């Protein structure tokens, strides 16, 4: 008589499935009630009620986002996370960092695992468009281009010299596609060696598996400093693409997107107003109505975004203006010494330009 066995089993199975369903329902409703991104609620409310921002970063690029052996994060990308946290909570440390590799970053964002990406992510149409990855790109915080790193003693000086060579590249990146495009354009045959994580790619390059390593120039420059004997490597004098890198949020959530967008713009605007970490207190007494509005002494710009009115005071106190962030992490005050170039304010011939805070 196996019937009873089957009965028992069927019972347990159906109970299990039902339990699973009701569980799914509960969690769905429980969390959905909190976030309900689909039904008008915004991630902004989720983040506020959580009291902490979850920020997806790379974690392996000195100067942009790097976690040291004590688990402390630093870098330009990290400072953007801190700025958003400061705007929301007045506390730049109310951030939980999540290290993501390039293949998992968008799903982590779309799945709600992180609130935003600040992870040297290139802004492209297909990533932005609803028919592609369906993301929202805040203004670029770093204008970059794709480069190629080779060994100094390899004798390679141009991309054409790379014919027949192996090139290490990280998968899931725009650089993987740009590399293919450029090489096709100049008709050079090469062998891509595609790695899932950047660490393995750079290690393989350093071990001599590949003759070239391609990525964003800033990343190559940063990673070069972490290789043993950095002097043995150099960047070719070629720029293979445009790589505007900036923070990213999920599609169809404009309240949250606006927050991230305007905090980012605020950093540039602060530099334009010459408001720094040191003088932000005095600047609040400024007579300039633009600055008074910007710092929330007058008007309700912050409230319109759903933030405290003095959110930019908090941001600047925490991380300084864009110029300070840049110098501290990748510019003159840092090891990388990357010239401002395109990343200067528009007043200095660069591309950093904030719409008016009005």
């Amino acid at each position, binding site marked *: 008589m196996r*019937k*009873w066995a*089957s*009965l028992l089993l*069927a*019972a347990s*199975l*159906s109970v299990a*499935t*039902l339990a*699973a*369903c009701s569980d*799914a*329902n509960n969690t*769905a409703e429980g969390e959905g009630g909190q976030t309900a*991104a*689909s039904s008008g609620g915004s991630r902004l409310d989720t983040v506020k009620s959580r009291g902490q921002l979850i920020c997806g970063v790379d974690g392996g690029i000195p100067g942009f986002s790097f976690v040291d052996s004590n688990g402390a994060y630093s870098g330009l990308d990290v400072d953007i996370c801190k700025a958003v946290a400061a705007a929301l909570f007045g506390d730049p440390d109310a951030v939980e960092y999540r290290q993501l590799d*390039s*293949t998992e970053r*968008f*799903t982590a964002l*779309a799945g709600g695992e992180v609130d935003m990406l600040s992870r040297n992510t290139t802004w492209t149409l*297909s990533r932005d*468009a*609803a*028919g*592609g*990855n*369906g993301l929202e790109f805040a203004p670029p915080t770093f204008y970059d281009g794709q480069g190629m790193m080779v060994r100094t003693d390899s004798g390679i000086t141009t991309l054409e010299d790379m014919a027949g060579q*192996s090139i290490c590249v990280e*998968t*899931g990146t725009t650089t*993987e*596609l740009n590399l*293919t*495009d450029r*090489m*096709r354009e100049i008709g050079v045959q*090469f*062998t*891509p*060696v*595609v*790695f*899932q994580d950047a660490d*393995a790619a750079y*290690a*393989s390059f350093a*071990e*001599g*598996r590949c003759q070239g390593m391609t990525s964003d120039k800033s990343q190559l420059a940063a990673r070069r400093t972490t290789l043993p004997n950095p002097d043995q490597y150099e960047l070719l004098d070629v720029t293979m693409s445009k790589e505007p890198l900036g923070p990213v949020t999920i*599609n*169809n959530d404009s309240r949250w997107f606006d927050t991230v967008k305007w905090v980012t713009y605020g950093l540039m605007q602060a530099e334009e107003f010459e408001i720094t970490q040191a003088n932000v207190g005095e600047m609040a007494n400024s007579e300039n109505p633009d600055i008074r509005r910007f710092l929330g002494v007058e008007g309700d710009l912050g409230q319109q975004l759903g933030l405290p009115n003095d959110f930019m005071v908090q941001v600047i106190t925490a991380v300084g203006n864009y110029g300070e962030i840049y110098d501290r992490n990748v510019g003159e005050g840092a090891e990388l010494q990357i010239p401002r170039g395109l990343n200067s304010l528009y007043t200095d011939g660069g591309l950093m330009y904030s719409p008016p805070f009005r």
Partner: protein
Amino acid sequence: MTSPSDQKIPLWRDERFWRILLQALAVVGVIIAILIFAGNLSRNMQQRGIQFGFAFLRNPAGFSIGETLFPFLPNEPYFKALLAGILNTIRVLLVGIVLTTILGSAAGIASFSENWLLRQISRVYVEIVRNTPLLLQLFFWYFAVFFGLPAPQNQLEWFGSMYLSKAGVSIPWPQNTPYLWMWLAVLLVGAIAALFVWRQRVKLMVEQGASGRSQLTTLIAMGVIALLIVLFGLGWQIPESTAPGLVQGGLRLTLEFSALLAGLVFYTGGFIAEIVRAGIQSVSKGQWEAARSLGLQSGLVMRLVVFPQALRVILPALNSQYQNLAKNSSLGFAIAYPEVYSVANTTYNQTGRPVEVFLLLMAAFLLINLVITIVMNQLNRSVQLKER
């Protein structure tokens, strides 16, 4: 007085009622689960503006693949990229199955060797390989072993015909000419003929107690001819080092392929060795003794009596090992070998279509496993006991 059939059984004690109810509940439960998941999926996809469909497969892929069996250009569509990935998987799978079977059988049989050292080596090998994770072994092979090879300028040379360096492994390989195919056909015909001769020899030896010497001579002659054909007829191209760091001719295997192959072969070999050992052990001792008492030599006992019986135990278990090999080959993506999972990963990343790509991936693996099962079942049927 009511007859037993009329007796009213309370509904809750009627087994039929429960059977139907529980099955209905199971169906309803599964359907509800599917509906909830599907509903969430469509809502999520709608929110992200994704349309379900496979039309994207015809868009140009835009990325290039490190090694492919057919020429693949980046402007070719995604489905071709995925096909290239599947072929890469099949490539490592076929070579892997052959090599791992040889290695595993050798190790399994070695565990019955008269030589104590050989037995211990077989045991140590099996215990090491089976008790450490495959992914770790793959990393070890790739990063510790193959990255330990010298740079192309001072490459290793083995027997004047193999070159090893960080640029890859070059091995001798037949040139692709009509002669090659002709000789391969000859070899195939010869192998079938040899099989017949072998069968006849065994039959004669068993049934008539013949020495089988004449057939053995034939077989040896055929073997020598086959060896000659293999050596000289196939037009082997020996890789040559024309300049320091430059190797021409032969077949060049990438480090990724070599590392994946080595890792899979050694790992699966450990499991096959255990299967072979258990299979041989499963043949009862009486069979050995009976065969011995008939005057057969130890080697013959193994070949004629024990191994065919062990095969019945071994073959079904091999099926699942080959399937594991196929599934494990997906770990190649962690060491940059462009097999199907790796290409699927890139495809999903560049298109943002995880569901479709995942379905394709699942279909590919289910298909590969189905083929393995069918082939193995055919083989299995030919060795199973034929009840008369």
